């Protein structure tokens, strides 16, 4: 899984690409962990992600917890299959999620 990150001052945008399988989630987590310190805003662009396994959800949850102390956290461009998962796991209620 390729993950591109963009830093603009204290705003971080992370754009993963591909299927967020159990084996891909660690790369995603690493990209976030390496860039998150000191960021006051995190935007996750899931426009290129069409599948989310529970390992990916775990990364979203722990990221949300971290950003809760540091600043804002938003998930944008969510595709339909991923939106379904975020909805029935209740993540869509807890987090700021925008459909594509």
């Amino acid at each position, binding site marked *: 899984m390729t993950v591109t990150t963009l830093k603009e001052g204290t705003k971080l945008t992370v754009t993963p690409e591909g*299927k967020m*399988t*159990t084996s891909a989630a660690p790369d995603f987590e690493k990209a976030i962990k390496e860039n998150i310190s000191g960021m006051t805003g995190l935007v996750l662009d899931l426009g290129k992600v069409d*599948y989310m*396994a*529970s*390992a990916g*959800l*775990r990364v979203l*949850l*722990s990221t949300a*917890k971290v950003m809760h102390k540091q600043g804002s956290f938003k998930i944008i461009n969510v595709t339909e299959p991923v939106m379904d998962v975020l*909805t*029935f*796991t*209740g*993540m869509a*209620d*807890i987090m700021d999620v925008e459909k594509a």
Partner: protein
Amino acid sequence: MEKLFDILYTITFNIFTILYIVMFFVSIKKCFLREKKNRVKLFFLTFVTNPIMVFIVTFVTAMISCGLIWALISGNTMSQGINEAIYGDTFSLQITMVGGMMFIALSILFSHLIGRWLKAPNVSMVTFIYLMFSVIYGLSGSSSDDSSSAVPIPSSGFNLMSNICSIAAICLLYRYVIRPLSALTDKERAINWKLFLIPPILFLPIYYTFDYCTFTFGSYAANLVSQLFSLLVVFLFIWAFCVIIRNINATNAAIEAKDLAAEMARAEARIEADLSIAKSIQTSALPRVFPPFPDKTEFELFASMNAAKEVGGDFYDFYLLNDSTLGFLIADVSGKSIPGAMFMMTAKTVIKSLAESGLSPAQVFTQANNKLCEGNEAEMFVTAWLGYLDLKTGLVRAANAGHNPPVLIHNGKAEYLKLRPGFVLAGMEGIKYKEQEIRLEKGDMLYLYTDGVTEAMNNSEDLYGEERLKELLSFGDEVPEPSEKNGIAEPVCEKVLVDVSEFTDGAEQSDDITMLCVRYMGEKQDQ
């Protein structure tokens, strides 16, 4: 000009000699001290085995033995023989040859014996190398004093150059042969020292033949060629030794790689063994006896969990909370392997004890969530769906904690129960869960599953999907054949397993496939 060359020659010769002895001492020390022997022995050793000493000893021995042989053959006295040997023309070539041969033989013997005596094989290696080097050096001097003026280069000039090259050669020998060698012996690998015999055995006969020819024909040009050749041989020697050492290094690297691979294979096998134990613990924690409550005819119940290769965290559970209430649960832990399995056990136990204490499904989840948030450093979470079936009325009170919506099969038609979702358990403290109600009529089935079913992938990375599941479960009039003990709950589960298996068509199972099917059969009929 000649005088200058002569002076330089003497200086360089002395530099070379000193350097040679010092390098020899340092090399022996490197190998010797590595093997942790004492310094006195070291000093004595270098004195005795110093190639220059050996050189003198062997040549003296050669002269004496040649002299003796001559004396015996020609009937003269021994002293005359030796005189002839040293000063005469007849034998100087023979002495060189015999001396040279003896020197080589004695070198080999010496090195071997020293190593044996001190129990330090690398010392014999180093000694041997230096002795070989000195053979070449010794033979690279001028073969004759014939200073014919046919060639413009003065012979002393040439000898000077020869010395400088020898100095360079000894430094190269130390840097590229001795140092790697001592590093090698550090690793305690058995070095086949006989390999180092190969350069001398290859080069020396050629050299000797050449030398013999030039000596016999004795022209200055031939002498020059011979000296150039001998210089070349010195460097070729060093190169040959380097190649040998590089080869040894490569072999060692290959051996080490193999050892490492074997070690990794062992570590992997250990992990696999641990995982299979964890998996068997997980599997045996789930109730697998069906029907679990044979006396209760108000419902049919069947459940299965097919673990993926890595221990996952799916589980199901059911409890008879009282005579007329059946609690049933399906859940999926986000963590994998041993931490996931441990968390699974905790979650299962917590939910069960809360349910059995009389709380409603929503209350169970509210309290379980807070309990599971405690000490959850690995930040795992659980999705779960818990329902209480009232066996008298068919009413199901349920709470959903972020789990996949279950399927309700009514009159052979399947629909998803996409009711209000709740947040996952152990994700965040303080969440209040809400209860939902579903009315089951007699014959209705509730099919619960984990994402191992809907997200099963085939080799083209297509997902099994919710549509396919819904279609499969809408069996319409083609009701599956009831099983012996579990009605149609069991065959429905089997049907899904078979279909998923056919869909994935041999692709590796990436997640646990878990399902629970409960069918309401109506209130118990009094006989």
